[in-house]
């Protein structure tokens, strides 16, 4: 990823990690996908950079 100035600090990453896991547990198996897609759209909009979003897609598609 190129935008290092925007990267999370380790504590910030740990907070996001915990928050995301907790939210996934909260929504339950049936709605997890929907929740994650909503989150992805919100983040894509906040990112405001279609190319970077494409890069994120490619990175997430690796090594599944």
């Amino acid at each position: 990823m190129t935008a290092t100035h925007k990267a999370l600090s380790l504590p910030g990453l740990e907070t996001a990690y915990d928050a995301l896991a907790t939210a996934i547990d909260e929504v339950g198996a049936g709605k997890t996908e929907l929740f994650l897609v909503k989150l992805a759209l919100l983040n894509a909009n906040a990112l405001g950079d279609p190319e970077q979003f494409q890069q994120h897609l490619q990175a997430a598609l690796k090594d599944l």
Partner: protein
Amino acid sequence: MHQPTTDPRPSIYYSYKVFQPWLPSANPAQQKQPVVIAGSGPAGMVTALELARHGVASVVLTPELQFSQGSRAICFTRRSMEILQQVGVADRMTEGGLPWRFGNSFYRGQRVFRMEAPHDADDRFFPIINVQQQFMEEYLFDACAASPLIDFRWGNKVTQVTQKNGFAEVQVDTPEGEYTLQADWLVAADGGRSPIRTALDLKLEGASYEGFFVIADIKIDLPLPTERLAYFDPEWNPGNTILMHREPHGIWRVDYQLPEGETPEEALQPESMKTRINAQLKMIGHEGTPWQMDWSSVYSARTLTLPDYVHGNVIFTGDAAHLLPIFGVRGANTAFQDAQSLGWHLAFLLKGLAGPKLLANHSTERVGAAREIIDEAGKSTRFMAPPSRGFRLLRDAVLSLSLSQAFVRPLYHWRTSRPHEYAGSMLNSAGDDNALFRAGPAHGAPPQNIRLSADDFLLDHLGGAFDLLYFTEAAAIPEPLQAVVAATRQRGIPLRVVAVGAAHPVTGADLTLADADGHFRHRYGVQASGAGYLLRPDQHVCARWLTLDANRLQAALNTALPQ
């Protein structure tokens, strides 16, 4: 022997007239025709009317003895009305039609998107008007019947097409048997299932979507305005979409998507339809309102086109040339644009005013338009009826987000049909000033209408010929320009000159529009006298100049009529 039904079709609101079949025994022997048009839908009849306007005779063949059954196409765009105005039926469309400009999308009982279609004081017609197709066909037929150049033959079914050397030969079956008809050009306007397309073994390119929609017309009194209504994922039809439109004569169109796995036959059972329509009425707060079924059909979205519309001496147009989804009102509205384009391109070729390249240009332009529509309509379709798990998940995420997040709401926009701009057309002038304009319709665009007075608009005066809009305050069109105009007309090319900006009639112009407040010049991006726009016979811009001279006008006309 072709035996079309002579029973009038059933309808609550439209009284079907059954016409007499055209019989070969009652007519003289058939000579070769310049144009035979197979099909009497919107594409077929508008092509015939446009050809007639250019002085070209045609024979229209239709297997039926009456107009098509059911409301079918109901929403007609502003550009369609401008085209229908050209063939003389816009007033009748306006008379009984229901104009509108707002669309609403609902999810979980909330209106999550409201679209407002732009409506300008310079526009004569509303963005969309609702008229049932039988009425539209009746208006077009009356115009065809009034033309001495259109030979309309009811009960005549094309059974065979043969490509000959430089012409087409069709076998036509009638209630008293077959006859043979030869034509320089056969226009296949025979609809989505086009038997001619099948007979010539031509393949459509593109995608077919699996979801089915029931289209039902019901007579019901609902106290709602004429606006588009779309409901997503309602409780009575989870995951699916419902559309509603008001039609004239107390009819409402209800379109609803079928649950996965349900067959069209099951869906069209009266009990099934009754249950679902009642559920929809209940959801919108009108449970128990009495209604009556008029007509129903099943539909699935397809985004397909032939890659070329001209095959030997057969030309495909309208649904025979392409299949488009209903989302965005693209069927008949695209057919009108096809027919308008085909009319002048074919007429000018037949009259020897241009070479075969002109017809090739028609195909290139309209295939380009179909591909643009397919690209846009595909997006609408993937939102209205998601074709895969991924698309469904994304659509559902957008629905859910739209209750609180404004940024996703524009995704509800259904990208209404708009006129294609032939920006890359080979007919556009290369040496003009198109790129230097800061406003006004550009290369390939349809013209911007201009309100001249209360009931008088620019487009009331344009079309059917090349139109030169020349912006001047002088007493006369410059001599050298007049000379080009005269020489062009001498070659048989219809060219009219409209002077814009002078207070008194301008010598050498067929029409002078004063434009006292400069509004017209402003909208066309004209800052000084001597500017001009050249419009093709379908009104699309093919050249524009900040300063026009005789050489540039001649060059543009040469480009627009390739030999």
